[in-house]
């Protein structure tokens, strides 16, 4: 059977424009959430977000690093983040110089939950005010979700499968899971997989606020607003960015002496069949996805050491925790579980990929990132290690990452240290 390992990582997040900066900030308990700077928030119910910082910031993002000027002008920011994170992952994997035969067997699976909303918003105004003749010729392909994978394949010459998942906030996890299957199924030897999002624009923020999904009570305390599992949580904080991993067939990675972070061993998918935005109150869909991922991994629930929760800082946190308890046991069988959305906000379609990278780094460094702002844990959290406030050193061999999305779509991934 073909096995799939992770050999490269790339991140653009509110805590850094690369993997090591983001991770160091996350472990140090920094928050990337602040008052929105990108547009005038007058009249908005939510005025805070986890923005990717500008290049003048100590951990800001410089799009010129890896994305051509012309492309930057034509596409929405989520695609820019995806191209940069993909480049980082290829560099990390030592795959910047692939021969033609290798490129034919290297594909891309980078998705997004929403896609180019800022560009759609701007061009809609442009259309209404100035007419159809002023709409940009790059409007469509600069906003399309699969242009993440399209642009990445063009830039890096990857001619294998070109795929993009669109499953709202489960996108990043589904993208990695689907890509791993493509390698297992011999469609490719290498896949760049992940998710990207950038919808911190007036329409995006207003839309999620109207859906009653966002935190709107702590605009004056942005760093305290994302507080998963805390009694005083009341909505998620929007984040943005991208996470991309290089997945590679195990023997292929070994043969070229690649650095191997972890193996993708289990992938579970399910649907709630319940409501457009609310999760099933009993968390059955979440439970099914987790059980499937653990079964496919060929391990026991008690083997899981760390769970990176979906944990959005909404009422749904309680439902997820109850589902995790049913799968792992009331004390999670000694596993730690945290929500890194407390530090970076909810990256929507990027979340599952970014959080999978955090899981992989937890394995690498034997440390689990904290759940910030968890000062008054809600009922039902007793006896569970939710890693409040501070990162924690501990043994981490096997990890579970959960992602759940609007429409009732659930994905769980199990990754573990590679054993020959």
């Amino acid at each position: 059977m073909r096995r799939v390992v992770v050999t490269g990582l790339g991140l653009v997040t509110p805590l850094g424009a690369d993997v090591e900066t983001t991770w160091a900030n996350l472990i140090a308990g920094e928050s990337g959430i602040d008052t929105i700077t990108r547009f005038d928030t007058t009249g908005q119910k939510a005025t805070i977000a986890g923005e990717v910082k500008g290049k003048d910031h100590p951990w800001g993002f410089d799009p010129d690093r890896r994305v051509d000027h012309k492309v930057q002008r034509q596409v929405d920011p989520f695609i820019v983040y995806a191209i940069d994170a993909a480049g980082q992952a290829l560099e990390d994997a030592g795959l910047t110089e692939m021969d033609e035969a290798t490129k034919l067997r290297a594909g891309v699976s980078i998705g997004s939950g929403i896609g180019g909303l800022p560009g759609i918003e701007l061009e809609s105004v442009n259309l209404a005010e100035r007419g159809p003749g002023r709409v940009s010729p790059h409007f469509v392909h600069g906003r399309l979700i699969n242009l993440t994978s399209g642009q990445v394949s063009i830039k890096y010459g990857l001619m294998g499968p070109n795929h993009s998942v669109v499953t709202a906030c489960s996108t990043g996890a589904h993208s990695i899971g689907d890509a791993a299957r493509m390698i297992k199924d011999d469609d490719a030897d290498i896949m760049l997989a992940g998710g990207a999002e950038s919808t911190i624009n007036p329409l995006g923020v207003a839309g999620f606020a109207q859906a009653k999904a966002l935190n709107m009570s702590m605009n004056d305390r942005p760093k305290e607003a994302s507080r998963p599992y805390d009694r005083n949580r009341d909505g998620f904080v929007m984040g943005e960015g991208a996470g991309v991993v290089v997945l590679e067939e195990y023997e292929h990675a070994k043969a070229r002496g690649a650095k191997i972070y972890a193996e993708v061993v289990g992938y579970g998918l399910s649907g709630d069949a319940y409501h457009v935005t609310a999760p099933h109150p009993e968390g059955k869909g979440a439970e099914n996805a987790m059980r499937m991922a653990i079964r496919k991994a060929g391990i026991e629930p008690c083997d899981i050491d760390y769970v990176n929760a979906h944990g959005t800082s909404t009422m749904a946190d309680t439902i997820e925790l109850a589902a995790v308890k049913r799968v792992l046991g009331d004390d999670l069988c000694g596993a730690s579980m945290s929500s890194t959305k407390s530090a970076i906000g909810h990256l929507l379609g990027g979340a599952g990929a970014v959080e999978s990278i955090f899981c992989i780094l937890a394995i690498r460094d034997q440390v689990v990132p904290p759940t910030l702002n968890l000062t008054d844990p809600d009922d039902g959290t007793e006896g569970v290690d939710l890693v409040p406030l501070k990162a924690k050193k501990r043994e981490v061999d096997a990890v579970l990452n959960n992602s759940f999305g609007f429409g009732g779509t659930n994905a769980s991934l199990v990754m573990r240290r590679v054993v020959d």
Partner: protein
Amino acid sequence: MSDIAARVKKIVVEHLGVEEEKVTPEASFIDDLGADSLDIVELVMAFEEEFGVEIPDDAAEKINTVGDANTYIEQHAG
């Protein structure tokens, strides 16, 4: 260089991300400056905006070089 040529050059540099030295009157948008057909649509829109001219599709199709653009605008800008 005329004022029009300087402004055309600025637009071309900005839109195509090319070095200023390459934007000579002889330079072909597609062959020398790496533009594709959609980039040319965008450039024509930018010229229309900058110079307050309307460049119909049949005229736009004949604009192949930077010099073609300069000439058209010189003849039609009011």
